[in-house]
């Protein structure tokens, strides 16, 4: 067991180092952006006096390196600073938005992950027969169409024509869980369609790979039912690549849904980030970038760890 612990510690340390490097990259990126915060806040109607006053108040006259280290020190103490543009505490504002994003990602994952794996298993069971072909065709088609197009078609059919679910999915605290779920039903459906194919195809490929093995043939010869062979004998050995793809897609559900958020007017992180990028609100952009990076690195780390735990061979690197 100490070997596993050592591996875990290693992985986590590497993840943190990566996160630190990413924070430097994000910071450099935000500095290169054209324009300045004060001008962006005041818009076209900025007078030189107003600009100068705002710039002074926002501390934009300090050098960038000093600003970076001040900020990093704050982050390490859990203080993300205040938004330059709105003067609000970033941690509070992000907390709420991150909660919303997680809420949407959670329900999309709850539906799409089991569904993808189940469809993958069915595709293997009936491989090269019509269920396999139908599942592949439908999921590949849905991943090939841009997500905003699927979203607009869904809005047109489900919201405008049938009026079953709202197209504006602005959830708020006064809603019950049932109301919230009804409100987000369309974006969840669209996100499910978008992430389904990737996970389904990987499940299918990984299991098919294992199905070539001698022990599966043995199981077949013993007369086990096909679905049992797949689920009990092939799937556990195929889990590592599947978990990897599932985690990648979950990360996408958290960090990559800006377009869906905009189309469905969902108050999540993506929309929040876009608003602040356009105002050159560097602390907020950095905080969002860092959180996104942390989510991505964290989920990939989990995938690694699951792979290692599931496959003893990986614990003994040559």
């Amino acid at each position: 067991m100490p070997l596993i612990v050592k591996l875990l510690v290693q992985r986590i340390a590497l993840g943190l180092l990566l996160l630190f490097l990413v924070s430097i990259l994000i910071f450099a990126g935000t500095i290169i952006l054209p324009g300045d915060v004060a001008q962006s806040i005041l818009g076209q109607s900025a007078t030189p006096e107003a600009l100068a006053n705002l710039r002074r108040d926002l501390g934009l006259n300090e050098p960038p390196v000093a600003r970076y280290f001040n900020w990093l020190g704050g982050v390490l103490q859990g203080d993300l600073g205040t938004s330059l543009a709105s003067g609000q505490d970033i941690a509070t504002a992000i907390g709420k938005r991150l909660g919303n994003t997680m809420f949407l990602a959670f329900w999309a994952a709850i539906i799409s992950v089991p569904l993808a794996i189940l469809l993958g298993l069915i595709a293997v069971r009936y491989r090269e027969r019509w269920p396999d072909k139908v599942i592949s065709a439908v999921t590949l088609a849905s991943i090939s169409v841009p997500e905003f197009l699927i979203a607009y078609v869904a809005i047109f059919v489900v919201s405008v024509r049938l009026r079953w679910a709202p197209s504006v999915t602005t959830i708020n605290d006064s809603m019950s869980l049932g109301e919230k779920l009804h409100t987000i039903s369309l974006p969840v459906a669209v996100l499910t369609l978008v992430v389904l194919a990737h996970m389904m195809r990987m499940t299918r490929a990984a299991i098919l790979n294992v199905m070539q093995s001698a022990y599966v043939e043995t199981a077949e010869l013993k007369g086990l039912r096909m679905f049992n062979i797949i689920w009990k004998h092939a799937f556990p050995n195929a889990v590592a690549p599947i978990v990897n793809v599932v985690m990648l897609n979950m990360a996408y559900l958290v960090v990559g849904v800006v377009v869906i958020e905009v189309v469905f007017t969902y108050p999540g992180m993506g929309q929040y980030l876009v608003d602040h990028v356009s105002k050159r609100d560097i602390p907020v952009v950095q905080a969002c970038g860092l959180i996104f990076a942390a989510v991505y690195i964290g989920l990939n780390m989990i995938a690694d760890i699951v792979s290692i735990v599931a496959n003893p061979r990986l614990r003994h690197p040559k």
Partner: protein
Amino acid sequence: MNDELKYLSRRAATGLLTRREFVGRAGALGLTAAAATTMMSSAVMAAGPQKGGTLRMGLQGGSTTDSLDPALATNQVALMLIRLWGEPLVELADDGGIDGKVAESFEASADAKTWTFTVRQGLTFSDGQEVTAADVAETLDRHAGEDTKSGALGLLRDIKDVRTDGRNVIIELNNANADLPYLMADYHLIVQPGGGKSAPDAAIGTGPYVLKEVDMGVRFVAEKNPNYWGDIGHAQTIELIVINDNTARVAALQSGQVDMIDRVPPRTAGLVARAPGITVASTSGPGHYVFIAHADTAPFDNQDLMLALKHGINRQEMVDKILFGYGSVGNDSPINSSYPMFTETEQREYDPEKAAHHFKKSGHSGSVLLRTSDNSFPGAPDAAALFQQSLAGAGIELEIKREPNDGYWSEVWNNKPFCTSYWGGRPTQDQMYTTAYLSTADWNDTRFKNEQFDQLLIAARAELDLAKRTQMYADMGAIQRDEGGLICPMFNDFIDAHNDKVAGWVENAKGFALMNSYAPVRMWVTG
């Protein structure tokens, strides 16, 4: 019209009959659906405002980074929120005149240098405090102060002194200004307790509503202010949802999730209008899309080159293809018929021969560089391409450089010598010219410096004789049209839309979109 129809429309107007039922029954009486809808809306207007209900709107422009401080308001959502909770001293009337809001009356001294505004008797803020003349004076002081960030600062520079006398606020100006009430109608200048100096973003004012839920850039809920003095503010609750995506905003209206939206894209406005129960309202206003050249920078300081460009633009084509007909042609002046003292001048037409003549005379060789971006106005890159083609017809080469949206307003506009831009317009000539065409104006984005023009502007400001003033503005328009750096091909209409659950829309109200942003407080929910 027979009696049964009249009876039905009355019942529908008072909410005893739904619109669907009414249209159905009217159809049984031989009326087309369109005629029935028209008839019902006139009956609804005649029945007068209904109280109560929830009015929901989906607007573009809000951002998480917005503030409730009226001094910092720059977008449609921020403006709309201000209309709900606050009021300026006076407000633009539908006919272009001035109505009292916080001030019940106002008057000028004979030389238009001293103005007295009288605060409405018994007026209270939404926190129960009485509104005093001192609050008004403090408000003006905050927006005109040395370290203010207010967008209204430019308007207030000419104020020498503000003092109070009982319920009167007396404003002394350095120079005479016959248009001061129009300046006081600026949406930044919301009267707040103590001038809003201690809590600028508290959203406490004298407006018809009180903000209850605030989620910046996402959603706002306002409830009727029970102590409101006036007769607007009909719905009990107003919900504002920020929907920045055009398609999503239109879909929200079509699916009945909101009752009212702004900025219907001109490209799809015709399709939206065809949907049952939806009215698209196009309002002509002072807003215009422009190509601006720095009149003091080579090669645009060359009068002939400017005239070549002005004759080489096809204005009608731009209105048809960029605005899809929702607008009117411009005449290289920022002033159109929406201004009170407007004089028609000869329309400049597309004339490739004249353009070629002036181009040759200018002695300019090579191409002319125009910068544009998507956000400089909707369809700006397309308009630039049209301009390029129409100039090519005169043998003039226009080079188009596409700039990123990010940083356009700081890096390109008012910075590079020739670019695309837009202006929202102002309620009076004086404000428009003072803002952007006076030699010393902060936003003189065409670098137009003309002594005669400046003198006329100052003189017109102090002129209380309407006929003389109108002539002065006509003269200034002519100077600018021929010598200015502004190429103004089109005035864009505001295109808003609402469904038939709300009524009370006023056609062609002056000011900004959505009835100068008063639509939600002046319209009402029909059932």
